[in-house]
Protein backbone atom coordinates (compact mmCIF):
# COMPACT_ATOMS: atom_id res chain seq x y z
CA UNK A 1 0.00 0.00 0.00
CA UNK A 2 1.83 2.96 -1.33
CA UNK A 3 1.71 5.59 -4.02
CA UNK A 4 4.11 6.21 -6.89
CA UNK A 5 4.88 9.15 -9.14
CA UNK A 6 4.42 8.72 -12.88
CA UNK A 7 7.83 9.67 -14.20
CA UNK A 8 6.62 10.90 -17.59
CA UNK A 9 4.19 13.36 -16.05
CA UNK A 10 6.02 14.74 -13.02
CA UNK A 11 7.26 18.27 -13.65
CA UNK A 12 9.52 18.35 -10.58
CA UNK A 13 7.67 21.25 -9.00
CA UNK A 14 8.43 19.85 -5.56
CA UNK A 15 5.06 20.77 -4.08
CA UNK A 16 4.49 17.25 -2.79
CA UNK A 17 7.73 16.89 -0.84
CA UNK A 18 6.93 19.09 2.18
CA UNK A 19 3.34 17.90 2.62
CA UNK A 20 4.18 14.22 3.07
CA UNK A 21 3.53 13.29 6.72
CA UNK A 22 5.97 10.37 6.56
CA UNK A 23 8.72 12.20 4.64
CA UNK A 24 8.58 9.52 1.97
CA UNK A 25 9.04 11.88 -0.95
CA UNK A 26 12.49 12.87 -2.17
CA UNK A 27 13.92 14.35 -5.32
CA UNK A 28 15.38 11.61 -7.47
CA UNK A 29 17.81 11.81 -10.38
CA UNK A 30 15.04 12.60 -12.86
CA UNK A 31 11.89 13.48 -10.97
CA UNK A 32 10.57 13.20 -7.44
CA UNK A 33 9.97 9.71 -6.08
CA UNK A 34 8.04 8.09 -3.26
CA UNK A 35 9.60 5.53 -0.96
CA UNK A 36 7.15 2.64 -1.16
CA UNK A 37 8.45 1.17 2.08
CA UNK A 38 7.37 4.17 4.15
CA UNK A 39 4.43 5.62 2.18
CA UNK A 40 1.16 5.04 4.02
CA UNK A 41 -1.07 6.84 1.50
CA UNK A 42 -1.55 9.18 4.48
CA UNK A 43 -3.68 6.63 6.32
CA UNK A 44 -3.91 7.62 9.98
CA UNK A 45 -2.80 11.19 9.21
CA UNK A 46 -5.24 12.52 6.61
CA UNK A 47 -8.39 11.47 4.79
CA UNK A 48 -6.77 11.76 1.39
CA UNK A 49 -3.13 11.52 0.30
CA UNK A 50 -1.65 15.00 0.65
CA UNK A 51 0.70 14.68 -2.31
CA UNK A 52 -2.22 13.86 -4.61
CA UNK A 53 -4.08 16.84 -3.18
CA UNK A 54 -1.31 19.35 -3.95
CA UNK A 55 0.00 17.85 -7.19
CA UNK A 56 -0.86 20.19 -10.09
CA UNK A 57 -0.89 17.37 -12.64
CA UNK A 58 -3.83 15.00 -12.99
CA UNK A 59 -3.08 11.29 -12.56
CA UNK A 60 0.57 11.90 -11.81
CA UNK A 61 0.54 10.21 -8.39
CA UNK A 62 -1.19 6.82 -8.46
CA UNK A 63 -1.54 3.84 -6.14
CA UNK A 64 1.10 1.19 -6.66
CA UNK A 65 -0.46 -2.06 -7.80
CA UNK A 66 -0.12 -4.56 -5.00
Amino acid at each position, binding site marked *: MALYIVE*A*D*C*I*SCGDCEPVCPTNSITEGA*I*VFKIDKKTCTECEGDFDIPQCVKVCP*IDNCILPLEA
Partner: protein
Amino acid sequence: MNSQATLSRELALRIGLAARVLPDTDAKALFAVLQDCVGLPITDANLSGITLTAFKAASAGALAHIEEALLKQALHLLKHPLADADPAPVQPEIHHLQPEDLAGSVRIACASDDGVNVDGHFGACKQFLIYQVAADHAHLIGIRATDSPDSADAEDKNTFRAELLRDCQVVYMASVGGPAAAKIVKLGIHPMKLSASVPIAEIIAQLQTVIAGTPPPWLAKAMGIEASDRFRFLTEARA
Protein backbone atom coordinates in the same frame (compact mmCIF):
# COMPACT_ATOMS: atom_id res chain seq x y z
CA MET B 1 17.05 79.43 -45.24
CA ASN B 2 14.39 76.99 -44.18
CA SER B 3 15.92 75.20 -41.25
CA GLN B 4 13.81 72.10 -41.70
CA ALA B 5 15.37 71.42 -45.06
CA THR B 6 18.71 71.12 -43.31
CA LEU B 7 17.54 68.64 -40.70
CA SER B 8 18.62 65.14 -41.48
CA ARG B 9 16.02 62.42 -41.00
CA GLU B 10 18.11 61.01 -38.21
CA LEU B 11 18.38 64.32 -36.39
CA ALA B 12 14.65 64.93 -36.73
CA LEU B 13 14.00 61.50 -35.28
CA ARG B 14 16.32 62.26 -32.37
CA ILE B 15 14.44 65.47 -31.64
CA GLY B 16 11.17 63.54 -31.78
CA LEU B 17 12.47 60.86 -29.40
CA ALA B 18 13.85 63.48 -27.02
CA ALA B 19 10.52 65.31 -26.99
CA ARG B 20 8.83 62.04 -26.08
CA VAL B 21 10.74 61.71 -22.80
CA LEU B 22 9.75 65.25 -21.75
CA PRO B 23 6.31 65.72 -20.25
CA ASP B 24 3.98 68.19 -22.00
CA THR B 25 6.53 68.85 -24.71
CA ASP B 26 5.96 67.91 -28.33
CA ALA B 27 8.61 67.89 -31.04
CA LYS B 28 7.53 71.34 -32.20
CA ALA B 29 7.93 72.86 -28.73
CA LEU B 30 11.31 71.20 -28.30
CA PHE B 31 12.35 72.45 -31.72
CA ALA B 32 11.52 76.02 -30.64
CA VAL B 33 13.64 75.57 -27.52
CA LEU B 34 16.56 74.20 -29.52
CA GLN B 35 16.25 77.04 -31.98
CA ASP B 36 16.51 79.47 -29.09
CA CYS B 37 19.55 77.58 -27.76
CA VAL B 38 21.66 77.25 -30.86
CA GLY B 39 19.91 79.25 -33.59
CA LEU B 40 19.33 77.96 -37.08
CA PRO B 41 20.22 75.70 -38.66
CA ILE B 42 20.24 73.02 -35.99
CA THR B 43 23.12 70.65 -36.61
CA ASP B 44 24.91 67.82 -34.88
CA ALA B 45 27.81 70.11 -34.07
CA ASN B 46 25.87 72.86 -32.34
CA LEU B 47 23.58 70.39 -30.53
CA SER B 48 26.58 68.74 -28.93
CA GLY B 49 27.49 72.09 -27.37
CA ILE B 50 24.24 72.51 -25.43
CA THR B 51 24.69 72.41 -21.67
CA LEU B 52 22.00 71.45 -19.21
CA THR B 53 21.92 75.02 -17.90
CA ALA B 54 21.48 76.50 -21.36
CA PHE B 55 18.81 73.89 -22.14
CA LYS B 56 16.83 74.90 -19.04
CA ALA B 57 17.20 78.65 -19.63
CA ALA B 58 16.21 78.64 -23.32
CA SER B 59 12.83 80.01 -24.45
CA ALA B 60 12.46 81.90 -21.16
CA GLY B 61 12.84 78.69 -19.15
CA ALA B 62 10.15 76.70 -20.99
CA LEU B 63 11.68 73.43 -19.77
CA ALA B 64 12.91 74.67 -16.38
CA HIS B 65 10.08 73.00 -14.47
CA ILE B 66 10.94 69.54 -15.79
CA GLU B 67 12.92 67.11 -13.66
CA GLU B 68 16.64 67.19 -14.34
CA ALA B 69 16.86 63.46 -14.88
CA LEU B 70 14.41 63.70 -17.79
CA LEU B 71 16.18 66.71 -19.24
CA LYS B 72 19.49 64.86 -19.11
CA GLN B 73 17.91 61.89 -20.83
CA ALA B 74 16.52 64.16 -23.55
CA LEU B 75 19.89 65.84 -24.03
CA HIS B 76 21.55 62.46 -24.28
CA LEU B 77 19.14 61.46 -27.04
CA LEU B 78 19.77 64.75 -28.85
CA LYS B 79 23.54 64.53 -28.71
CA HIS B 80 24.13 60.89 -29.52
CA PRO B 81 23.57 59.21 -32.85
CA LEU B 82 20.70 56.76 -32.75
CA ALA B 83 22.93 53.71 -32.72
CA ASP B 84 23.57 54.56 -29.06
CA ALA B 85 19.92 54.83 -28.22
CA ASP B 86 17.50 51.92 -27.90
CA PRO B 87 16.60 50.63 -31.31
CA ALA B 88 12.95 51.05 -32.18
CA PRO B 89 11.11 47.74 -31.89
CA VAL B 90 10.98 46.03 -35.24
CA GLN B 91 8.23 43.71 -36.33
CA PRO B 92 9.94 40.33 -36.52
CA GLU B 93 9.71 38.20 -39.60
CA ILE B 94 7.46 35.19 -39.50
CA HIS B 95 8.99 31.93 -40.61
CA HIS B 96 7.01 29.52 -42.73
CA LEU B 97 7.30 26.21 -41.00
CA GLN B 98 9.04 23.45 -42.93
CA PRO B 99 8.53 19.77 -42.06
CA GLU B 100 12.19 19.43 -41.10
CA ASP B 101 11.80 22.15 -38.46
CA LEU B 102 9.55 19.86 -36.45
CA ALA B 103 11.97 17.07 -35.57
CA GLY B 104 12.96 17.13 -31.91
CA SER B 105 11.23 20.43 -31.38
CA VAL B 106 8.73 21.97 -29.05
CA ARG B 107 6.21 24.69 -29.83
CA ILE B 108 6.09 27.45 -27.28
CA ALA B 109 3.92 30.51 -26.80
CA CYS B 110 5.23 33.69 -25.16
CA ALA B 111 2.81 36.17 -23.62
CA SER B 112 4.25 39.51 -24.68
CA ASP B 113 3.16 43.11 -24.90
CA ASP B 114 6.32 44.55 -26.48
CA GLY B 115 7.15 41.65 -28.78
CA VAL B 116 10.66 41.31 -27.33
CA ASN B 117 10.21 40.23 -23.72
CA VAL B 118 7.94 37.78 -22.00
CA ASP B 119 6.28 40.58 -20.08
CA GLY B 120 2.59 39.81 -20.45
CA HIS B 121 -0.13 38.57 -18.14
CA PHE B 122 -1.82 35.54 -19.61
CA GLY B 123 -5.26 37.10 -19.39
CA ALA B 124 -4.26 40.62 -20.42
CA CYS B 125 -1.36 40.53 -22.89
CA LYS B 126 -1.84 41.90 -26.39
CA GLN B 127 -0.39 38.94 -28.21
CA PHE B 128 1.24 35.56 -28.02
CA LEU B 129 4.41 34.98 -30.01
CA ILE B 130 4.63 31.38 -31.15
CA TYR B 131 8.04 29.78 -31.66
CA GLN B 132 9.09 26.35 -32.83
CA VAL B 133 12.23 25.54 -30.87
CA ALA B 134 14.67 22.69 -31.49
CA ALA B 135 18.14 22.19 -30.06
CA ASP B 136 19.87 23.88 -33.00
CA HIS B 137 17.26 26.26 -34.39
CA ALA B 138 14.28 28.32 -33.36
CA HIS B 139 11.75 30.09 -35.54
CA LEU B 140 9.01 32.57 -34.91
CA ILE B 141 6.07 30.93 -36.63
CA GLY B 142 3.23 33.18 -35.66
CA ILE B 143 1.93 36.12 -33.69
CA ARG B 144 -1.52 35.56 -32.33
CA ALA B 145 -3.58 38.57 -31.31
CA THR B 146 -5.74 38.10 -28.28
CA ASP B 147 -8.80 40.11 -29.27
CA SER B 148 -11.63 38.10 -27.88
CA PRO B 149 -15.29 38.74 -28.58
CA ASP B 150 -16.38 41.72 -26.47
CA SER B 151 -19.29 39.85 -24.96
CA ALA B 152 -17.05 37.19 -23.45
CA ASP B 153 -16.78 37.42 -19.68
CA ALA B 154 -13.52 36.88 -17.83
CA GLU B 155 -13.82 33.14 -17.66
CA ASP B 156 -14.59 32.78 -21.34
CA LYS B 157 -11.72 35.09 -22.13
CA ASN B 158 -9.17 32.81 -20.51
CA THR B 159 -10.65 29.76 -22.21
CA PHE B 160 -10.49 31.64 -25.50
CA ARG B 161 -6.85 32.49 -24.90
CA ALA B 162 -5.95 28.95 -23.91
CA GLU B 163 -7.69 27.65 -27.06
CA LEU B 164 -5.55 30.02 -29.12
CA LEU B 165 -2.50 28.09 -27.94
CA ARG B 166 -3.94 24.60 -28.33
CA ASP B 167 -1.10 23.48 -30.62
CA CYS B 168 1.63 24.65 -28.23
CA GLN B 169 3.27 22.50 -25.59
CA VAL B 170 4.51 25.24 -23.30
CA VAL B 171 3.38 28.79 -22.62
CA TYR B 172 5.61 31.35 -20.90
CA MET B 173 4.20 34.43 -19.20
CA ALA B 174 5.08 37.00 -16.58
CA SER B 175 1.96 36.24 -14.59
CA VAL B 176 -1.15 34.09 -14.65
CA GLY B 177 -4.03 33.48 -12.28
CA GLY B 178 -4.85 30.10 -10.76
CA PRO B 179 -8.09 29.35 -12.63
CA ALA B 180 -6.51 30.43 -15.92
CA ALA B 181 -3.51 28.17 -15.27
CA ALA B 182 -5.92 25.29 -14.64
CA LYS B 183 -7.54 25.91 -18.05
CA ILE B 184 -4.12 25.90 -19.71
CA VAL B 185 -3.15 22.63 -18.02
CA LYS B 186 -6.48 21.10 -19.02
CA LEU B 187 -5.60 21.62 -22.68
CA GLY B 188 -2.33 19.77 -22.14
CA ILE B 189 -0.23 22.92 -22.29
CA HIS B 190 2.47 23.43 -19.70
CA PRO B 191 2.28 26.90 -18.13
CA MET B 192 5.56 28.54 -17.12
CA LYS B 193 5.24 31.63 -14.97
CA LEU B 194 8.42 33.70 -14.81
CA SER B 195 9.35 35.71 -11.76
CA ALA B 196 10.22 38.75 -13.87
CA SER B 197 10.04 39.99 -17.44
CA VAL B 198 12.63 38.01 -19.42
CA PRO B 199 13.74 38.48 -23.05
CA ILE B 200 12.20 35.85 -25.32
CA ALA B 201 15.64 35.19 -26.80
CA GLU B 202 16.88 34.20 -23.35
CA ILE B 203 13.96 31.82 -22.81
CA ILE B 204 14.65 30.18 -26.15
CA ALA B 205 18.37 29.83 -25.42
CA GLN B 206 17.58 28.24 -22.06
CA LEU B 207 15.09 25.86 -23.58
CA GLN B 208 17.54 24.88 -26.31
CA THR B 209 20.11 23.96 -23.67
CA VAL B 210 17.53 21.74 -22.01
CA ILE B 211 16.48 20.10 -25.28
CA ALA B 212 20.10 19.50 -26.27
CA GLY B 213 20.83 17.92 -22.90
CA THR B 214 18.46 15.59 -21.10
CA PRO B 215 14.95 16.97 -21.33
CA PRO B 216 12.84 16.18 -18.27
CA PRO B 217 10.40 13.34 -18.95
CA TRP B 218 7.32 15.57 -19.18
CA LEU B 219 9.03 17.70 -21.84
CA ALA B 220 10.29 14.66 -23.73
CA LYS B 221 6.72 13.38 -23.74
CA ALA B 222 5.43 16.74 -24.99
CA MET B 223 8.05 16.69 -27.75
CA GLY B 224 6.85 13.26 -28.84
CA ILE B 225 10.08 11.44 -28.00
CA GLU B 226 9.21 7.77 -27.75
CA ALA B 227 9.27 6.18 -24.33
CA SER B 228 11.98 3.77 -25.45
CA ASP B 229 14.21 6.68 -26.47
CA ARG B 230 13.35 8.41 -23.25
CA PHE B 231 14.51 5.34 -21.39
CA ARG B 232 17.93 5.87 -22.94
CA PHE B 233 17.91 9.43 -21.61
CA LEU B 234 16.90 8.24 -18.19
CA THR B 235 19.55 5.56 -17.91
CA GLU B 236 22.17 8.03 -19.06
CA ALA B 237 21.09 10.49 -16.43
CA ARG B 238 21.13 7.85 -13.75
CA ALA B 239 24.53 6.50 -14.63
